[in-house]
């Protein structure tokens, strides 16, 4: 294994190891926070599949997230705990269904146009949930009874939910890592780099993009399901474009094109938000934390174009650049 691949594997193994060990040291607040971050990491991974692998900048990921969450609440019976075995796939299927609808209509468009269309379709889902009686209105709805899997898994316990979420994260990560190396994943990469060449070679690119879109929607729905179960509460703001924007920022901050970037970005962004919101650090100004967040977003996009995961590469290039310039000055080939 090359050093690059080795360091990536080590990073991932260490990260998941730390996450597995965390409940031993974290209190209940910490466990809840890290569960939330892991859910966002799953959501970020779903968007990374679209943006980082396929080159489709979707500004409407919150819709699939929110639909997965609302499905978890709306499909759950009021009296007895529902079984994970059908509820989880059902939520993913509903999110994937909306992704199929949106994808079919948006994927004929490109570039900026595509960004606008996906944003608009997410707004559509937002308004359906916000305005119509279907979604319970602005106040949101509660999930009183958490799903179970037989006698073994009861997601009502925070620790069980933590472990289940971690397992989902590892599975999604592993699946996407394998997918990127597969024929399908390589085709998506090709479509991102040069769709015209892919078509000229004989790939019908639209079905590939649509499949990636639906898959991404399903994974986002999984994240939504987990989020609904964790909080026991869903509200329309889960489908807002601020949510969509936040997920995009997570993967940019973490580093586009790397699966671990989604992980890093989810952590960095959530922790940054917690920092800005904390009154301990900012006192009463913490009310206006979105100002700091906005500035942080601008700064990170401007200064870290390759994200945190791309920092080592950025530094390496800076060092190599210096070395090659020195070599040129000395008349030696770099």
């Amino acid at each position: 294994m090359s050093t690059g691949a080795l360091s990536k594997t080590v990073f991932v193994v260490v990260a998941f190891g730390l996450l597995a060990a965390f409940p031993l040291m974290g209190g209940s607040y910490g466990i809840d926070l890290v569960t939330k971050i892991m859910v966002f990491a799953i959501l970020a991974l779903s968007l990374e599949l679209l943006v980082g692998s396929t080159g489709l900048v979707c500004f409407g990921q919150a819709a699939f997230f929110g639909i997965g969450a609302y499905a978890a609440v709306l499909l759950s019976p009021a009296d007895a705990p529902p079984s994970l075995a059908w509820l989880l796939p059902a939520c993913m299927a509903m999110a994937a269904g909306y992704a199929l609808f949106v994808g079919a209509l948006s994927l004929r468009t490109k570039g900026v146009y595509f960004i606008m269309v996906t944003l608009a379709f997410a707004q559509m889902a937002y308004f359906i949930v916000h305005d119509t009686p279907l979604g319970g209105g602005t106040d949101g709805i509660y999930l009183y009874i958490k799903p179970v899997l037989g006698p073994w898994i009861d997601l009502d316990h925070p620790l069980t939910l933590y472990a289940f979420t971690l397992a989902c994260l590892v599975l999604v990560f592993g699946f996407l890592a394998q997918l990127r190396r597969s024929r399908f994943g390589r085709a998506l990469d090709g479509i991102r780099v040069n769709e015209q060449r892919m078509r000229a070679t004989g790939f019908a690119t639209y079905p590939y993009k649509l499949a990636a879109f639906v898959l991404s929607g399903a994974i986002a729905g999984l994240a939504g399901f987990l989020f609904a179960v964790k909080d026991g509460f869903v509200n329309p703001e889960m489908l807002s474009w601020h949510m969509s924007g936040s997920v995009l920022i997570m993967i940019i901050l973490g580093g586009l094109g790397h699966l671990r970037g989604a992980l890093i970005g989810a952590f960095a962004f959530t922790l940054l938000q917690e920092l800005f919101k904390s009154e301990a650090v900012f006192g009463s100004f913490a009310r206006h934390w979105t100002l700091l967040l906005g500035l942080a977003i601008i700064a990170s996009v401007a200064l870290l174009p390759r994200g945190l995961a791309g920092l080592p590469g950025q530094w390496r290039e800076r060092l190599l650049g210096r070395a090659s310039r020195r070599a040129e000055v000395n008349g030696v080939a770099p």
Partner: protein
Amino acid sequence: MDLATFLIQCLNSLQYGLLLFLVASGLTLIFGIMGVINLAHGSFYMIGAYMAFALAQPVASTFGGGFFSVLLVGLVLAVVLGYVLEWAFYSYLYEREHLQQVLMTYGLILVFEELRSLIVGDEVHGVAAPAFLAGSIALGDMMTYPVYRLFISAVCIALALGMYYVFSRTRLGMMIRAGSNNREMVQSLGIDIKFLYRVVFAAGVAIAALAGMVAAPVSSVYPGMGSSVLIICFVVVVIGGIGSIRGALVAALLIGFVDTFGKVLMPEVAGVLVYVLMAAILLWKPDGLFKAA
């Protein structure tokens, strides 16, 4: 619905559609000429509306001006804001990918919203229309219609015609169009492209702010107005076809009608109707109604 109500709603639709067209034109202008997708465009609309509210008192007490003085002061401030913003921020976005532009201008929205919250607060405000425009005018002998709404439509039409004139008949318009096609060529001809872009951007900001100011008496001034108008503008561009001014006009009017009549006839789903319209049109014409001019 009786005929009078129907006609009133038609006029309302027209007014809303024209306002949308104006704001969407500013957005398309900046994108078409400088290649920057500016999510904060809605914030300029919001800033305009809040200026109409916040400047009323100071302008009245400083030199006894009324509504039109507020418009003028607001316009000047908007141009200055646009000029400074382009120099300090937007000029760095031209060479960047669309994703980066989207996220940086998104960050800017958050900054603007919070600054507004700090400076003016989060309450909803009303703005009074000027007295001589506040009444209703009789149309035929069966109904009356607010004069101010007709004024809004007139302002939008006048501005749209003004933009058309500048673009197709003046030297400035020619330089702008040339600059959007071939930046280097225009620069080599000795035209200061940086200055040109700054002017265009300031104009775009001014148009959005003016739209917000003019609309304020009718729509009231509230925190989320920037985001709502921005997303509807996106729908205008998507339905109309990117790059097509004619498409933007048709789309804006279409949305005006669907939204206005939707609110009257089916209030619970009114918010969704515009998007259903968009989905239906994309089903029929994946590239929007018109191709780029």
